């Protein structure tokens, strides 16, 4: 119970082919950052990673734990490697205190992330800290058009790092940042310079923590400026009226059941009638966690905010449904 040891934080580093994940790591790992980081590398480019704690994962082994249930798709290779790393750390406690998993450019982040929730042994020992996605400023536009994996990696991210910004003009960076913000409204977008990137750009981000504040990127324009019709997109629902807990529960249950495959990340900080504290929840496909958040202050305007990120999500259906879950609204017919 509460006496259990803190779990080892894990960062999943994704990014499309050639975005510079390996270069980024090679710039960061040798720095005197005082952190001992084990790296699990899934892809072998020309530039290998120089790290004492490098583990190579040859090939992606996707394992379906349960018939057809998307959330039960995990990475068998990772389960094995993380188990071996755990044994190593148990023998020598100072072996490492962070893990970074560098995925292949084409990897779907979902099975990697779900491994940390579905496999009980892994979940007990490791904590998924964040998904960090590196986006190549030079090739992003074409890659986002041509490869759905590129959009999905952006959609899943807790943080987006734009690389190679020195090779394009500033206006291109602005429009790329806006596009990334429409795909993923909740991941901060930052430029990354390979030579000077700091380790805290990729670890200790707390992307999956229920305590972390739900902030919508100021660049998020919602309905406006639909320059690109990206399959992956976000939408945000805000209200100052409280939800009826039962109505919201029933509605979200239906939405998760109907759209589990397309619903990549979702998070909410909501006010319920009859509760004096915020309720926070966060999900990945069908996996979800909820808890109590900070209490509402006396007289505070109870601002609820929910964000959904996914593939071809029917925003109007969500918005209309959420409106119906607000307390005091008439119940939908049927």
């Amino acid at each position, binding site marked *: *119970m509460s006496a259990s040891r803190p779990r080892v934080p894990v960062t999943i580093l994704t990014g499309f082919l050639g975005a510079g994940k390996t270069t980024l790591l090679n710039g960061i790992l040798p720095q005197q950052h005082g952190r001992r980081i084990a790296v699990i590398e899934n892809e072998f480019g020309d530039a290998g990673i120089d790290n004492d704690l490098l583990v190579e994962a040859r090939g992606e082994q996707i394992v379906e734990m349960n018939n057809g249930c998307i*959330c039960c798709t995990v990475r068998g290779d990772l389960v094995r490697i993380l188990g071996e790393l755990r044994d190593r750390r148990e023998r020598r406690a100072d072996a490492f205190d962070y893990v970074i998993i560098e995925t292949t450019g084409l990897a779907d982040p979902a099975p990697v992330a779900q491994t940390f*929730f*579905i496999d009980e042994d892994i*979940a007990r020992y490791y904590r998924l800290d964040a998904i960090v996605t590196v986006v190549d400023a030079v090739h992003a536009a074409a890659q986002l058009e041509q490869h759905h994996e590129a959009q999905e990696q952006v959609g899943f991210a807790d943080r987006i790092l734009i690389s190679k910004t020195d090779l394009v003009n500033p206006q291109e960076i602005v429009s790329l940042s806006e596009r990334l913000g429409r795909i993923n409204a909740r991941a901060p977008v930052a430029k990354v310079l390979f030579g000077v990137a700091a380790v805290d750009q990729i670890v200790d981000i707390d992307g*999956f923590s*229920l305590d972390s504040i739900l902030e919508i990127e100021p660049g998020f324009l919602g309905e406006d400026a639909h320059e690109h019709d990206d399959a992956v997109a976000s939408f945000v629902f805000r209200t100052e009226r409280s939800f009826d*807990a039962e109505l*919201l*529960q*029933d509605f*979200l*249950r239906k939405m*998760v059941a109907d759209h589990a495959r397309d619903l990549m990340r979702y998070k909410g900080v909501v006010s*319920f009638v009859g*509760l*004096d*504290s915020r*309720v*926070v*929840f*966060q*999900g*990945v496909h*069908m*996996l*979800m*966690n*909820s*808890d*109590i*958040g900070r209490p509402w202050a006396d007289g505070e305007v109870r601002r609820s905010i929910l964000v959904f990120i996914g593939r071809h999500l029917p925003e109007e259906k969500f918005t209309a449904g959420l409106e119906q879950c607000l307390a005091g609204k008439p119940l939908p017919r049927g």
Partner: protein
Amino acid sequence: MTANSSNPLLEKCLALAEGEEPVFSHPWESRAFAIVVQLSAAGHFTWAEWVACFSEEVRAATAAEAAGTAAPSYYEQWLAAAEKIMIAKGVTSREQLAAKRFGIGVVGTAHQVAV
């Protein structure tokens, strides 16, 4: 403890070591049982306090059953009492339980994880 047939707790008490009978019908029952034992062992409440709380729950359920209401199972009563004593002792709060129930209601227990 003396055998006292007027104590509803003892009337409904399971035979924990009797023959081949399974003690728990569902995995959650063993977890509910273990949580109460652990919390008491950790000093959140004494066993006597637990017995009093559980007895009260059983008494209420028995009365409700006598009045024609469908009775909760033994471990449903156990769980209800466990929630009450945990709230009373500050282990959790009514609001936290509500927040957890919300998530379980959306995705089910199998998908409720520490995301």
